[in-house]
């Protein structure tokens, strides 16, 4: 080898070694970057999983909110048999878009339908990017707390006495409650002008229960809880509250088909309150007078010391409950309607999550 070649060879030896080492360093650098990329992917996956979980939980909240909204409930549950209770799930599956690439797929399953005890299992699957990047499923049972907990078995129920006089028509032709007309914790007084219609062939006297100690021995609060399944403060907090004195039919009618908590000494004497399809439940705390041409479909619960019903040509379809004494006179038609009562219980009820029923997984 020539001298020049040897000199060149010396330089050539250092360069490849340096290049090899630099290549090694570059490889290590790339490896470090790969770790960072993997960590980034792990973080992304963790984030997607959390978003999916949050979406699934939100799906439960959305379902509950829809079930408790009168207009939206009609799109989810329906009453096809005309018995006053929800018997069919109209939309067993629906999707709620919660954000870009995030949605909750909600399934409703009936655990109890077609009776007073309505229970639904709501399963919600949270999805990120069409479930490709994140998926989580949670479920919870929702039970209905009825607009009224216990449907009255008599047309007129009072913890105190019931006095009926004049050309009043009382009718209950429901065999389920044996055509019961009046049920009182104290005396029942009526004159001969009162027209009573119970089950065909049944003596109307048998459709009355007076001096029932189960009513008489209860306090006003116990009596209230018997019907509504909770104390007054709780029911008040869940009802539509209105304060009105004097003629209040218009004010109450404006609230629509709801459970209405009415404060004040109110008189309801005209117009329509509720309808057979959309009944009302009125809970009145003050002195209450139902009179004139009022047509009411639903349930009236009165806390007045003396509840007065003086319907001249009006009517009540449903039932009346008085915490104390009840006086019905002058005229009008009062009839027990089990379908309207059932509807008042189910259509005006609210769904609540059953504690202990939340679970995750498919």
């Amino acid at each position, binding site marked *: 080898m*020539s*001298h*020049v070649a*040897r*000199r060149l060879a*010396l*330089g050539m*030896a*250092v360069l490849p*070694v*340096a290049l090899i*080492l*630099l290549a*090694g*360093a570059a490889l*290590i*650098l790339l*490896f*470090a970057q790969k*770790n*960072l990329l*993997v*960590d980034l992917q*792990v973080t992304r996956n*963790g984030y997607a999983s959390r978003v999916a979980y949050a979406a699934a*939980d939100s799906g439960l909240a959305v379902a509950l909110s829809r079930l408790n909204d009168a207009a939206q409930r009609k799109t989810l549950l329906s009453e096809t048999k005309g018995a006053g209770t929800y018997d069919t799930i109209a939309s067993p599956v629906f999707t709620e878009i919660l954000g870009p690439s995030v949605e909750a797929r909600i399934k409703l399953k009936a*655990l109890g339908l077609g009776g007073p*005890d309505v*229970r639904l*299992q709501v399963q919600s699957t949270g999805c990120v990017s069409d479930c490709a990047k994140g998926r989580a499923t*949670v479920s*919870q*049972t929702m*039970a209905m*707390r009825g607009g009224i907990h216990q449907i009255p078995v008599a047309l007129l129920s009072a913890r105190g006495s019931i006095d009926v006089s004049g050309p009043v028509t009382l009718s209950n032709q429901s065999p389920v409650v044996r055509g019961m007309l009046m049920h009182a914790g104290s005396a029942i007084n009526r004159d001969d002008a009162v027209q009573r219609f119970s089950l065909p062939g049944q003596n109307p006297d048998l459709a009355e229960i007076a001096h029932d100690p189960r009513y008489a021995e209860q306090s006003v609060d116990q009596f209230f*809880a018997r019907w509504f*399944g*909770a*104390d007054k403060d*709780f029911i008040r907090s869940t009802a539509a509250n209105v304060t009105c004195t004097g003629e209040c039919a218009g004010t109450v009618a404006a609230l629509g088909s709801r459970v209405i908590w009415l404060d004040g000494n109110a008189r309801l004497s005209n117009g329509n309150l509720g309808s057979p399809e959309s009944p009302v439940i009125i809970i009145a705390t003050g002195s209450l007078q139902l009179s004139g041409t009022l047509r009411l479909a639903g349930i009236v619960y009165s806390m007045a010391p003396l509840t007065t019903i003086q319907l001249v040509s009006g009517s009540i379809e449903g039932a009346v409950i008085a915490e104390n004494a009840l006086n019905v006179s002058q005229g009008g038609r009062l009839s027990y309607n089990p379908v309207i009562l059932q509807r008042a219980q189910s259509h005006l009820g609210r769904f*609540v999550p*059953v*504690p*202990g*029923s*939340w*679970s*995750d997984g498919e």
Partner: protein
Amino acid sequence: MCNRRRERGVSLIETLIAMALGLLVLTGVLQLMNQLVDGNTATIKVTRLAQDTRTVMDIIIQDLRRAGSFPEAVNDLGDSQRFLQDQPPAPRIDGEVLKPGQPGSSISYAYRESDGKLTQGKFSLDLKAGSIQMHTGTASAPETITDPAFIHVTALSFLPSRSESRSGPVQQEQIAIEVRLVARLKSEPTVERQLVDRVVLRNPVLK
């Protein structure tokens, strides 16, 4: 003459200078490599510490979230006595009834699975080994859910808060737990990571 000069070869000084320069370049490259390897190792460790603590936190949060669940709840509706009987035991911190604002280093809880089996869990920090123990079931031995050879857990705390609400005649207690986890690398105690998360127990305790 010219050919002879060319054939004289490389002098000792030239060789030494060439070797010195070569060594200098080599030293620089090796140092760079060393730094890269060290940096990479540190990154891997920090990444793993982050991943491990996050995974442990997810396990804790996910299991606590389902505390109090029991399938009989649906059938027990309307019968508060049976409901209270079937309800799994309420969570306890350091073996005591939850006191809002009072943290502890261990939490026990329970939930019933769909097959009726009661899972009683407990997360606690074993102070001697600096690792998190997870107890599941009633008789099984605790399981270490952190790698004691790699991570030293210096703190695990559970801070409860609660709110009460009513659903009809039943009083409900909604519990939320703030979980704080501090862990450091066993090999490099200066590398530490702290995670704080909050979980709302989805099933309220009924009273």
